[in-house]
Protein backbone atom coordinates (compact mmCIF):
# COMPACT_ATOMS: atom_id res chain seq x y z
CA UNK A 1 0.00 0.00 0.00
CA UNK A 2 1.35 3.36 -1.02
CA UNK A 3 1.96 5.75 1.85
CA UNK A 4 -0.47 8.65 1.66
CA UNK A 5 -0.97 11.96 3.36
CA UNK A 6 -4.55 12.16 4.53
CA UNK A 7 -5.94 15.65 4.97
CA UNK A 8 -7.96 15.88 8.19
CA UNK A 9 -8.83 19.59 7.97
CA UNK A 10 -7.86 22.35 5.56
CA UNK A 11 -8.39 26.08 5.78
CA UNK A 12 -9.02 27.93 2.52
CA UNK A 13 -6.19 28.28 0.03
CA UNK A 14 -4.00 25.23 0.70
CA UNK A 15 -2.88 23.78 -2.64
CA UNK A 16 -0.38 21.43 -4.27
CA UNK A 17 2.43 23.34 -6.00
CA UNK A 18 5.54 22.24 -7.83
CA UNK A 19 7.92 24.73 -9.47
CA UNK A 20 5.13 25.94 -11.74
CA UNK A 21 3.80 25.33 -15.22
CA UNK A 22 6.24 26.46 -17.88
CA UNK A 23 5.97 26.88 -21.62
CA UNK A 24 2.25 27.64 -21.93
CA UNK A 25 2.09 31.33 -21.01
CA UNK A 26 1.94 31.89 -24.76
CA UNK A 27 -1.45 30.11 -24.76
CA UNK A 28 -2.75 32.10 -21.81
CA UNK A 29 -1.99 29.42 -19.22
CA UNK A 30 -0.90 30.82 -15.86
CA UNK A 31 2.37 29.50 -14.43
CA UNK A 32 1.12 29.12 -10.83
CA UNK A 33 3.83 27.54 -8.61
CA UNK A 34 4.75 28.59 -5.07
CA UNK A 35 4.16 32.11 -3.73
CA UNK A 36 7.49 31.86 -1.89
CA UNK A 37 9.67 29.85 -4.27
CA UNK A 38 12.66 29.95 -1.90
CA UNK A 39 10.82 28.44 1.08
CA UNK A 40 9.23 25.83 -1.18
CA UNK A 41 12.71 24.88 -2.41
CA UNK A 42 14.13 24.77 1.14
CA UNK A 43 11.45 22.28 2.23
CA UNK A 44 12.25 20.10 -0.76
CA UNK A 45 16.02 20.37 -0.43
CA UNK A 46 15.87 19.49 3.28
CA UNK A 47 14.76 16.04 2.09
CA UNK A 48 17.25 15.89 -0.78
CA UNK A 49 14.49 16.45 -3.37
CA UNK A 50 14.89 18.50 -6.54
CA UNK A 51 13.98 22.04 -5.48
CA UNK A 52 10.80 22.12 -7.58
CA UNK A 53 9.23 18.82 -6.43
CA UNK A 54 5.48 18.81 -5.77
CA UNK A 55 4.69 19.92 -2.21
CA UNK A 56 1.76 21.39 -0.29
CA UNK A 57 1.50 25.15 0.08
CA UNK A 58 -0.24 25.84 3.40
CA UNK A 59 -2.05 29.18 3.76
CA UNK A 60 -2.83 31.04 6.99
CA UNK A 61 -6.02 28.97 6.95
CA UNK A 62 -3.92 26.08 8.28
CA UNK A 63 -3.85 22.34 7.63
CA UNK A 64 -4.16 19.13 9.64
CA UNK A 65 -3.07 15.79 8.30
CA UNK A 66 -1.95 12.31 9.14
CA UNK A 67 -0.11 9.46 7.41
CA UNK A 68 -1.88 6.44 5.98
CA UNK A 69 -0.41 2.97 5.45
CA UNK A 70 3.14 3.90 6.49
CA UNK A 71 5.00 6.60 8.39
CA UNK A 72 5.76 9.61 6.20
CA UNK A 73 8.69 11.95 6.77
CA UNK A 74 7.83 15.56 5.98
CA UNK A 75 9.80 18.79 5.81
CA UNK A 76 8.17 22.10 6.70
CA UNK A 77 9.58 25.51 5.84
CA UNK A 78 8.19 28.99 5.24
CA UNK A 79 6.77 31.62 7.56
CA UNK A 80 6.87 31.36 11.36
CA UNK A 81 3.92 28.98 11.51
CA UNK A 82 2.79 27.11 14.61
CA UNK A 83 3.50 23.42 14.02
CA UNK A 84 2.56 20.59 16.35
CA UNK A 85 2.61 16.82 16.21
CA UNK A 86 0.11 15.17 18.54
CA UNK A 87 0.01 18.32 20.61
CA UNK A 88 3.78 18.65 20.89
CA UNK A 89 5.09 21.97 19.54
CA UNK A 90 7.75 21.82 16.84
CA UNK A 91 9.96 24.50 15.30
CA UNK A 92 8.47 26.25 12.25
CA UNK A 93 11.12 24.79 9.94
CA UNK A 94 11.48 21.14 10.73
CA UNK A 95 11.88 17.63 9.41
CA UNK A 96 9.72 15.15 11.24
CA UNK A 97 8.12 11.75 10.65
CA UNK A 98 4.36 11.49 10.91
CA UNK A 99 3.14 8.10 12.08
CA UNK A 100 -0.23 6.68 11.06
CA UNK A 101 -2.77 7.82 13.68
CA UNK A 102 -0.58 10.84 14.53
CA UNK A 103 -1.92 14.33 13.76
CA UNK A 104 0.30 17.05 12.36
CA UNK A 105 -1.21 20.50 12.77
CA UNK A 106 0.04 23.50 10.82
CA UNK A 107 -1.40 26.89 11.79
CA UNK A 108 -0.55 30.51 11.25
CA UNK A 109 1.98 31.61 13.87
CA UNK A 110 3.75 34.82 14.78
CA UNK A 111 4.79 35.70 11.21
CA UNK A 112 4.59 34.83 7.56
CA UNK A 113 1.73 33.88 5.29
CA UNK A 114 2.77 30.62 3.63
CA UNK A 115 4.33 27.35 4.81
CA UNK A 116 5.46 24.47 2.60
CA UNK A 117 5.20 20.76 3.36
CA UNK A 118 7.42 18.48 1.29
CA UNK A 119 7.76 14.69 1.32
CA UNK A 120 10.71 12.57 0.16
CA UNK A 121 10.67 12.31 -3.63
CA UNK A 122 7.76 14.73 -3.89
CA UNK A 123 4.01 14.19 -3.84
CA UNK A 124 2.63 11.91 -6.53
CA UNK A 125 0.04 14.10 -8.21
CA UNK A 126 -0.94 13.60 -11.86
CA UNK A 127 0.61 16.24 -14.10
CA UNK A 128 -1.76 18.47 -16.03
CA UNK A 129 -0.31 20.47 -18.92
CA UNK A 130 3.10 19.37 -17.69
CA UNK A 131 2.89 20.37 -14.03
CA UNK A 132 1.35 19.41 -10.68
CA UNK A 133 0.80 23.06 -9.73
CA UNK A 134 -2.75 24.06 -8.86
CA UNK A 135 -4.41 27.07 -10.47
CA UNK A 136 -7.83 27.19 -8.88
CA UNK A 137 -9.26 29.98 -11.07
CA UNK A 138 -9.03 27.79 -14.15
CA UNK A 139 -9.31 24.43 -12.38
CA UNK A 140 -5.89 23.23 -13.51
CA UNK A 141 -3.53 20.85 -11.71
CA UNK A 142 -3.19 19.62 -8.12
CA UNK A 143 -6.19 17.71 -6.78
CA UNK A 144 -8.96 18.26 -9.38
CA UNK A 145 -7.75 21.83 -9.90
CA UNK A 146 -8.96 22.93 -6.47
CA UNK A 147 -7.72 23.74 -3.00
CA UNK A 148 -7.26 20.86 -0.56
CA UNK A 149 -10.10 19.77 1.70
CA UNK A 150 -10.69 17.25 4.47
CA UNK A 151 -10.67 13.69 3.20
CA UNK A 152 -8.17 14.25 0.38
CA UNK A 153 -5.46 11.60 0.13
CA UNK A 154 -2.20 12.38 -1.65
CA UNK A 155 0.30 9.62 -2.43
CA UNK A 156 3.84 10.00 -1.13
CA UNK A 157 5.24 6.84 -2.75
CA UNK A 158 8.93 7.38 -1.99
CA UNK A 159 8.49 8.26 1.66
CA UNK A 160 9.19 4.80 3.06
CA UNK A 161 12.88 5.45 3.53
CA UNK A 162 13.98 8.20 5.88
CA UNK A 163 16.31 10.41 3.85
CA UNK A 164 17.77 12.63 6.51
CA UNK A 165 17.94 12.74 10.25
CA UNK A 166 14.92 14.48 11.72
CA UNK A 167 15.35 17.85 13.35
CA UNK A 168 15.27 21.58 12.90
CA UNK A 169 15.99 23.02 9.45
CA UNK A 170 18.80 25.51 9.91
CA UNK A 171 18.35 28.10 7.16
CA UNK A 172 18.61 31.60 8.66
CA UNK A 173 17.68 33.07 5.24
CA UNK A 174 14.11 31.84 5.78
CA UNK A 175 13.71 34.75 8.20
CA UNK A 176 13.36 37.61 5.75
CA UNK A 177 11.84 40.77 7.18
CA UNK A 178 9.76 42.66 4.62
CA UNK A 179 10.96 46.14 5.55
CA UNK A 180 12.67 46.64 2.20
CA UNK A 181 11.74 44.99 -1.09
CA UNK A 182 14.18 45.32 -3.98
CA UNK A 183 12.93 46.17 -7.47
CA UNK A 184 14.27 46.68 -10.96
CA UNK A 185 12.51 49.65 -12.57
CA UNK A 186 10.34 48.93 -15.61
CA UNK A 187 9.23 47.61 -18.02
CA UNK A 188 6.97 50.71 -18.19
CA UNK A 189 8.77 53.08 -15.79
CA UNK A 190 8.62 55.61 -18.64
CA UNK A 191 4.85 55.83 -18.13
CA UNK A 192 5.68 57.82 -14.97
CA UNK A 193 7.43 61.15 -14.49
CA UNK A 194 10.56 61.38 -12.31
CA UNK A 195 8.64 62.78 -9.33
CA UNK A 196 6.17 59.87 -9.48
CA UNK A 197 9.04 57.39 -9.48
CA UNK A 198 10.46 59.15 -6.42
CA UNK A 199 7.05 58.89 -4.81
CA UNK A 200 6.95 55.18 -5.59
CA UNK A 201 10.41 54.63 -4.05
CA UNK A 202 9.66 56.80 -1.01
CA UNK A 203 6.46 54.96 -0.09
CA UNK A 204 5.87 53.67 2.46
CA UNK A 205 3.54 50.93 1.21
CA UNK A 206 1.19 48.82 3.28
CA UNK A 207 0.01 45.35 2.30
CA UNK A 208 -3.77 45.46 1.94
CA UNK A 209 -6.15 42.85 3.33
CA UNK A 210 -7.34 42.40 -0.25
CA UNK A 211 -5.01 39.90 -1.87
CA UNK A 212 -4.53 36.28 -2.82
CA UNK A 213 -2.25 34.07 -4.91
CA UNK A 214 -2.96 36.22 -7.94
CA UNK A 215 -2.09 39.64 -6.62
CA UNK A 216 -0.92 41.62 -3.62
CA UNK A 217 -2.66 45.01 -3.33
CA UNK A 218 -0.68 47.90 -1.85
CA UNK A 219 -1.85 51.09 -0.14
CA UNK A 220 0.20 54.26 0.01
CA UNK A 221 0.76 57.49 -1.91
CA UNK A 222 -1.37 57.79 -5.05
CA UNK A 223 0.68 57.49 -8.24
CA UNK A 224 -0.30 59.33 -11.40
CA UNK A 225 0.57 58.31 -14.93
CA UNK A 226 2.34 60.59 -17.38
CA UNK A 227 0.22 59.53 -20.36
CA UNK A 228 -2.87 57.67 -19.19
CA UNK A 229 -3.12 54.21 -17.71
CA UNK A 230 -4.15 52.11 -20.71
CA UNK A 231 -1.33 50.47 -22.63
CA UNK A 232 -1.49 47.82 -25.32
CA UNK A 233 -1.36 44.54 -23.37
CA UNK A 234 2.01 42.87 -22.99
CA UNK A 235 3.54 40.06 -20.96
CA UNK A 236 3.52 39.98 -17.14
CA UNK A 237 6.38 38.55 -15.07
CA UNK A 238 5.84 37.37 -11.48
CA UNK A 239 6.53 40.34 -9.21
CA UNK A 240 5.44 42.94 -11.78
CA UNK A 241 4.05 46.05 -10.05
CA UNK A 242 1.23 47.42 -12.17
CA UNK A 243 -0.42 50.76 -11.51
CA UNK A 244 -4.08 50.91 -12.57
CA UNK A 245 -6.09 54.12 -12.96
CA UNK A 246 -6.69 54.81 -9.27
CA UNK A 247 -2.93 54.90 -8.67
CA UNK A 248 -2.53 52.20 -6.00
CA UNK A 249 -0.05 49.52 -7.09
CA UNK A 250 -0.88 45.85 -7.50
CA UNK A 251 1.92 43.26 -7.39
CA UNK A 252 1.15 40.35 -9.70
CA UNK A 253 2.10 37.06 -8.12
CA UNK A 254 2.08 33.32 -8.89
CA UNK A 255 -1.51 33.05 -10.19
CA UNK A 256 -1.31 36.18 -12.35
CA UNK A 257 -2.64 36.31 -15.88
CA UNK A 258 -0.02 35.91 -18.60
CA UNK A 259 -0.63 39.36 -20.15
CA UNK A 260 -2.16 42.66 -19.09
CA UNK A 261 -2.82 46.24 -20.03
CA UNK A 262 -1.72 48.51 -17.17
CA UNK A 263 1.72 50.15 -16.97
CA UNK A 264 4.18 48.21 -14.80
CA UNK A 265 6.37 50.71 -12.99
CA UNK A 266 8.83 48.15 -11.59
CA UNK A 267 9.36 44.44 -10.98
CA UNK A 268 10.33 42.78 -7.70
CA UNK A 269 13.58 40.83 -8.00
CA UNK A 270 13.35 37.05 -7.78
CA UNK A 271 15.13 36.80 -4.44
CA UNK A 272 12.57 39.13 -2.80
CA UNK A 273 9.36 37.57 -4.14
CA UNK A 274 9.05 35.39 -1.05
CA UNK A 275 9.74 38.36 1.19
CA UNK A 276 6.65 40.09 -0.17
CA UNK A 277 4.57 36.90 -0.33
CA UNK A 278 5.22 36.27 3.38
CA UNK A 279 4.24 39.83 4.39
CA UNK A 280 0.87 39.84 6.11
CA UNK A 281 -1.80 42.50 5.58
CA UNK A 282 -0.79 45.62 7.48
CA UNK A 283 2.93 45.12 6.91
CA UNK A 284 4.60 48.41 5.97
CA UNK A 285 7.67 48.55 3.74
CA UNK A 286 9.57 50.51 1.11
CA UNK A 287 10.82 49.59 -2.31
CA UNK A 288 14.51 49.93 -3.05
CA UNK A 289 15.68 50.33 -6.63
CA UNK A 290 18.56 48.03 -7.64
CA UNK A 291 20.40 47.38 -10.85
CA UNK A 292 20.15 44.15 -12.79
CA UNK A 293 23.52 42.87 -11.53
CA UNK A 294 22.48 43.05 -7.87
CA UNK A 295 19.34 41.06 -8.61
CA UNK A 296 21.36 38.38 -10.39
CA UNK A 297 23.84 38.23 -7.47
CA UNK A 298 20.97 37.73 -5.02
CA UNK A 299 19.51 35.02 -7.23
CA UNK A 300 22.93 33.35 -7.45
CA UNK A 301 23.28 33.36 -3.65
CA UNK A 302 19.90 31.61 -3.28
CA UNK A 303 20.83 29.17 -6.01
CA UNK A 304 24.12 28.30 -4.27
CA UNK A 305 22.42 27.87 -0.92
CA UNK A 306 19.92 25.46 -2.43
CA UNK A 307 22.49 23.55 -4.47
CA UNK A 308 24.22 22.10 -1.42
CA UNK A 309 22.76 20.04 1.39
CA UNK A 310 20.36 21.90 3.67
CA UNK A 311 21.53 21.83 7.28
CA UNK A 312 19.15 19.93 9.50
CA UNK A 313 20.23 20.03 13.13
CA UNK A 314 20.36 16.33 13.78
CA UNK A 315 18.93 14.21 16.49
CA UNK A 316 20.14 10.66 17.01
CA UNK A 317 16.92 9.02 15.88
CA UNK A 318 15.90 9.10 12.24
CA UNK A 319 12.22 8.91 13.05
CA UNK A 320 10.16 10.77 15.61
CA UNK A 321 7.66 8.48 17.33
CA UNK A 322 5.47 10.62 19.51
CA UNK A 323 6.75 9.12 22.79
CA UNK A 324 10.26 10.10 21.70
CA UNK A 325 9.13 13.64 20.88
CA UNK A 326 7.53 13.93 24.28
CA UNK A 327 10.92 13.42 25.83
CA UNK A 328 12.50 16.26 23.87
CA UNK A 329 12.45 19.94 24.53
CA UNK A 330 11.18 21.17 21.19
CA UNK A 331 9.54 24.33 22.49
CA UNK A 332 10.35 27.59 20.74
CA UNK A 333 12.55 26.01 18.14
CA UNK A 334 15.59 25.79 20.44
CA UNK A 335 16.04 22.05 20.18
CA UNK A 336 19.59 20.81 20.42
CA UNK A 337 19.38 17.15 19.66
CA UNK A 338 23.04 16.40 20.21
CA UNK A 339 23.14 18.03 23.62
CA UNK A 340 20.01 16.16 24.69
CA UNK A 341 21.54 12.92 23.55
Amino acid at each position, binding site marked *: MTPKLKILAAGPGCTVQDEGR*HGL*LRYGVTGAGPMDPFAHAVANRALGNPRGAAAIEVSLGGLELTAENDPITVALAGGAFAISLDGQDLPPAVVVTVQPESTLKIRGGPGGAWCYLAVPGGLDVPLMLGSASTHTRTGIGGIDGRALRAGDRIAAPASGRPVVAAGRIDVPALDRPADTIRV*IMGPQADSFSADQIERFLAGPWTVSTRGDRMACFLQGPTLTHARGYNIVSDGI*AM*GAIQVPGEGQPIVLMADRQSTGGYP*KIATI*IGADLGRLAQARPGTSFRFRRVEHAEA*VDARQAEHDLLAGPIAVEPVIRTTFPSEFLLGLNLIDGCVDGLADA
Partner: protein
Amino acid sequence: MSPRPTTSPRFLDAGEAALVVEFGSVVDPAVSDRVLCLDEILAASQINGIRELVPTYRSLMIHYDPLRIRREALVAAVEDTLTAAPAHRRASTHWIVPCCYEEPHGEDLAELAAIAGLPPADVAALHSGATYRVYMYGFAPGFTYLGGLPEAIAVSRRSTPRPPHEPKAVTVGGGLSAIGTFSMPTGWYVVGRTPEKFYAPERSRAFLLEPGDTLRFEPIDSTTFEGLHARAEAGEVVARTEEP
Protein backbone atom coordinates in the same frame (compact mmCIF):
# COMPACT_ATOMS: atom_id res chain seq x y z
CA MET B 1 3.77 40.18 -45.60
CA SER B 2 4.36 43.91 -45.29
CA PRO B 3 7.93 45.20 -45.76
CA ARG B 4 9.94 44.74 -42.63
CA PRO B 5 10.20 47.94 -40.58
CA THR B 6 13.78 48.74 -39.79
CA THR B 7 13.49 50.62 -36.51
CA SER B 8 15.32 48.96 -33.64
CA PRO B 9 13.23 47.42 -30.91
CA ARG B 10 13.39 48.58 -27.30
CA PHE B 11 14.79 46.18 -24.70
CA LEU B 12 12.92 46.50 -21.41
CA ASP B 13 13.62 44.58 -18.21
CA ALA B 14 10.73 42.89 -16.44
CA GLY B 15 12.85 41.94 -13.43
CA GLU B 16 16.16 40.09 -13.84
CA ALA B 17 14.59 37.01 -15.43
CA ALA B 18 12.39 38.45 -18.18
CA LEU B 19 13.27 40.72 -21.09
CA VAL B 20 10.67 42.52 -23.19
CA VAL B 21 11.61 43.12 -26.82
CA GLU B 22 9.20 45.86 -27.84
CA PHE B 23 8.63 46.66 -31.53
CA GLY B 24 5.92 49.29 -31.17
CA SER B 25 3.10 50.64 -29.03
CA VAL B 26 0.07 49.90 -31.20
CA VAL B 27 -1.99 46.96 -32.42
CA ASP B 28 -0.76 46.57 -35.97
CA PRO B 29 -0.16 43.58 -38.28
CA ALA B 30 3.33 44.75 -39.29
CA VAL B 31 4.42 45.09 -35.65
CA SER B 32 2.87 41.71 -34.87
CA ASP B 33 4.79 40.16 -37.78
CA ARG B 34 8.08 41.32 -36.30
CA VAL B 35 7.13 39.92 -32.88
CA LEU B 36 6.13 36.55 -34.31
CA CYS B 37 9.17 36.37 -36.54
CA LEU B 38 11.50 36.81 -33.55
CA ASP B 39 9.39 34.36 -31.53
CA GLU B 40 9.71 31.71 -34.20
CA ILE B 41 13.46 32.10 -34.68
CA LEU B 42 14.23 32.14 -30.95
CA ALA B 43 11.98 29.11 -30.38
CA ALA B 44 14.02 27.21 -32.97
CA SER B 45 17.39 28.54 -31.78
CA GLN B 46 17.59 26.59 -28.53
CA ILE B 47 19.64 29.36 -26.95
CA ASN B 48 20.77 28.07 -23.57
CA GLY B 49 18.92 29.80 -20.74
CA ILE B 50 15.76 30.90 -22.59
CA ARG B 51 12.86 29.41 -20.66
CA GLU B 52 9.70 30.64 -22.30
CA LEU B 53 8.54 33.05 -25.02
CA VAL B 54 5.31 35.06 -24.81
CA PRO B 55 4.31 36.91 -27.98
CA THR B 56 1.87 39.81 -27.57
CA TYR B 57 0.52 42.46 -29.97
CA ARG B 58 3.64 44.55 -29.97
CA SER B 59 6.36 42.82 -27.99
CA LEU B 60 7.93 39.48 -27.18
CA MET B 61 8.51 38.64 -23.52
CA ILE B 62 11.51 36.35 -23.09
CA HIS B 63 11.55 34.56 -19.74
CA TYR B 64 15.14 33.46 -19.11
CA ASP B 65 17.46 32.15 -16.43
CA PRO B 66 20.00 34.93 -15.79
CA LEU B 67 22.32 32.38 -14.13
CA ARG B 68 22.58 30.56 -17.47
CA ILE B 69 22.60 33.46 -19.90
CA ARG B 70 23.66 37.00 -19.08
CA ARG B 71 21.31 39.80 -20.06
CA GLU B 72 23.94 41.31 -22.37
CA ALA B 73 24.41 37.97 -24.14
CA LEU B 74 20.65 37.59 -24.58
CA VAL B 75 20.29 41.10 -26.01
CA ALA B 76 23.19 40.42 -28.37
CA ALA B 77 21.61 37.15 -29.49
CA VAL B 78 18.31 38.91 -30.20
CA GLU B 79 20.07 41.70 -32.11
CA ASP B 80 22.00 39.16 -34.17
CA THR B 81 18.76 37.38 -34.94
CA LEU B 82 17.10 40.59 -36.06
CA THR B 83 20.02 41.59 -38.25
CA ALA B 84 20.83 38.24 -39.81
CA ALA B 85 17.60 36.35 -40.07
CA PRO B 86 15.17 36.62 -42.95
CA ALA B 87 11.76 37.95 -41.94
CA HIS B 88 9.99 34.74 -42.85
CA ARG B 89 7.45 33.24 -40.60
CA ARG B 90 6.14 29.72 -40.90
CA ALA B 91 3.08 29.55 -43.14
CA SER B 92 0.16 30.54 -40.95
CA THR B 93 -2.94 28.38 -40.89
CA HIS B 94 -6.35 29.67 -41.96
CA TRP B 95 -9.24 28.36 -39.87
CA ILE B 96 -12.97 28.17 -40.50
CA VAL B 97 -14.59 28.45 -37.09
CA PRO B 98 -18.29 27.60 -36.81
CA CYS B 99 -20.24 30.20 -34.81
CA CYS B 100 -23.91 30.39 -33.90
CA TYR B 101 -25.20 33.97 -33.82
CA GLU B 102 -28.79 32.89 -33.01
CA GLU B 103 -30.49 33.08 -29.64
CA PRO B 104 -29.65 32.01 -27.01
CA HIS B 105 -26.00 32.09 -28.09
CA GLY B 106 -25.69 35.58 -29.55
CA GLU B 107 -27.17 37.05 -26.41
CA ASP B 108 -25.77 40.59 -26.80
CA LEU B 109 -26.13 40.80 -30.60
CA ALA B 110 -29.22 43.03 -30.46
CA GLU B 111 -27.59 45.34 -27.89
CA LEU B 112 -24.47 45.69 -30.03
CA ALA B 113 -26.65 46.25 -33.13
CA ALA B 114 -28.46 49.11 -31.37
CA ILE B 115 -25.15 50.78 -30.48
CA ALA B 116 -23.85 50.33 -34.03
CA GLY B 117 -27.18 51.51 -35.51
CA LEU B 118 -27.55 48.39 -37.64
CA PRO B 119 -30.05 45.52 -37.89
CA PRO B 120 -28.82 42.51 -35.85
CA ALA B 121 -28.61 40.38 -38.99
CA ASP B 122 -26.17 42.88 -40.49
CA VAL B 123 -23.96 42.72 -37.41
CA ALA B 124 -23.77 38.93 -37.71
CA ALA B 125 -23.08 39.22 -41.45
CA LEU B 126 -20.31 41.77 -40.89
CA HIS B 127 -18.75 39.72 -38.10
CA SER B 128 -18.78 36.49 -40.11
CA GLY B 129 -17.70 38.21 -43.31
CA ALA B 130 -14.35 39.39 -41.98
CA THR B 131 -11.01 37.60 -41.85
CA TYR B 132 -9.36 37.82 -38.43
CA ARG B 133 -5.78 37.57 -37.33
CA VAL B 134 -4.93 35.78 -34.08
CA TYR B 135 -2.79 38.40 -32.37
CA MET B 136 -2.18 36.77 -29.03
CA TYR B 137 -3.47 34.72 -26.15
CA GLY B 138 -4.09 36.16 -22.71
CA PHE B 139 -6.56 36.53 -19.88
CA ALA B 140 -7.30 32.79 -19.57
CA PRO B 141 -6.09 29.52 -21.13
CA GLY B 142 -7.13 29.44 -24.79
CA PHE B 143 -8.53 33.00 -24.77
CA THR B 144 -7.54 34.59 -28.09
CA TYR B 145 -7.54 38.23 -29.17
CA LEU B 146 -8.54 38.69 -32.81
CA GLY B 147 -7.79 41.71 -35.01
CA GLY B 148 -9.68 42.53 -38.20
CA LEU B 149 -13.08 43.51 -36.86
CA PRO B 150 -15.04 45.64 -39.39
CA GLU B 151 -15.12 49.33 -38.40
CA ALA B 152 -18.93 49.41 -38.45
CA ILE B 153 -19.11 47.11 -35.40
CA ALA B 154 -15.85 48.17 -33.70
CA VAL B 155 -17.48 49.48 -30.51
CA SER B 156 -15.86 50.33 -27.17
CA ARG B 157 -16.02 48.00 -24.22
CA ARG B 158 -18.89 48.29 -21.74
CA SER B 159 -18.30 50.74 -18.90
CA THR B 160 -19.09 47.96 -16.40
CA PRO B 161 -18.82 44.20 -16.99
CA ARG B 162 -21.90 42.08 -17.77
CA PRO B 163 -22.64 38.83 -15.90
CA PRO B 164 -20.66 35.67 -16.81
CA HIS B 165 -21.21 34.25 -20.29
CA GLU B 166 -21.06 30.62 -21.37
CA PRO B 167 -17.68 29.05 -22.23
CA LYS B 168 -16.78 29.29 -25.93
CA ALA B 169 -18.40 32.72 -26.31
CA VAL B 170 -17.44 34.84 -29.31
CA THR B 171 -17.26 38.47 -28.22
CA VAL B 172 -16.69 41.97 -29.55
CA GLY B 173 -15.21 44.92 -27.65
CA GLY B 174 -12.47 47.53 -27.69
CA GLY B 175 -12.18 47.34 -31.48
CA LEU B 176 -11.35 43.62 -31.41
CA SER B 177 -13.10 40.27 -31.40
CA ALA B 178 -12.22 37.41 -29.04
CA ILE B 179 -12.97 33.78 -28.31
CA GLY B 180 -13.52 33.11 -24.61
CA THR B 181 -12.91 29.60 -23.28
CA PHE B 182 -14.18 29.90 -19.71
CA SER B 183 -17.40 31.22 -18.23
CA MET B 184 -16.56 34.68 -16.92
CA PRO B 185 -17.90 38.21 -16.54
CA THR B 186 -16.86 40.43 -19.43
CA GLY B 187 -16.87 44.03 -20.58
CA TRP B 188 -17.30 42.79 -24.15
CA TYR B 189 -20.48 41.99 -26.12
CA VAL B 190 -21.36 38.32 -26.70
CA VAL B 191 -22.29 38.06 -30.39
CA GLY B 192 -22.27 34.29 -30.73
CA ARG B 193 -20.87 30.99 -29.52
CA THR B 194 -18.58 28.51 -31.20
CA PRO B 195 -18.98 24.76 -30.63
CA GLU B 196 -15.18 24.32 -30.96
CA LYS B 197 -13.05 23.89 -27.83
CA PHE B 198 -10.08 26.21 -28.13
CA TYR B 199 -8.89 25.02 -24.73
CA ALA B 200 -9.04 21.24 -24.33
CA PRO B 201 -6.39 20.02 -21.85
CA GLU B 202 -7.66 16.45 -22.19
CA ARG B 203 -7.12 16.52 -25.98
CA SER B 204 -3.66 15.69 -27.37
CA ARG B 205 -3.67 19.14 -28.95
CA ALA B 206 -4.89 21.35 -26.12
CA PHE B 207 -4.68 24.57 -28.19
CA LEU B 208 -5.51 24.82 -31.89
CA LEU B 209 -4.61 28.37 -32.86
CA GLU B 210 -1.13 29.84 -33.14
CA PRO B 211 -0.52 33.58 -32.96
CA GLY B 212 -0.35 34.76 -36.57
CA ASP B 213 -3.02 32.30 -37.77
CA THR B 214 -6.05 33.73 -39.56
CA LEU B 215 -9.66 32.68 -39.20
CA ARG B 216 -13.18 33.30 -40.42
CA PHE B 217 -16.40 32.59 -38.54
CA GLU B 218 -18.91 30.40 -40.37
CA PRO B 219 -22.52 31.08 -39.31
CA ILE B 220 -24.42 27.98 -38.16
CA ASP B 221 -27.95 27.56 -36.81
CA SER B 222 -28.62 26.38 -33.28
CA THR B 223 -29.44 22.81 -34.37
CA THR B 224 -26.08 22.52 -36.11
CA PHE B 225 -24.47 24.09 -33.04
CA GLU B 226 -25.87 21.38 -30.77
CA GLY B 227 -24.51 18.61 -32.99
CA LEU B 228 -21.05 20.12 -33.34
CA HIS B 229 -20.96 21.05 -29.64
CA ALA B 230 -21.55 17.40 -28.67
CA ARG B 231 -18.83 16.21 -31.04
CA ALA B 232 -16.35 18.82 -29.80
CA GLU B 233 -17.03 17.99 -26.16
CA ALA B 234 -16.32 14.34 -27.04
CA GLY B 235 -12.85 15.33 -28.23
CA GLU B 236 -13.30 15.95 -31.96
CA VAL B 237 -11.93 19.09 -33.59
CA VAL B 238 -14.87 20.69 -35.42
CA ALA B 239 -13.14 23.83 -36.71
CA ARG B 240 -11.62 23.29 -40.15
CA THR B 241 -8.50 24.54 -41.85
CA GLU B 242 -8.23 25.62 -45.46
CA GLU B 243 -5.88 27.44 -47.78
CA PRO B 244 -6.20 31.16 -47.12
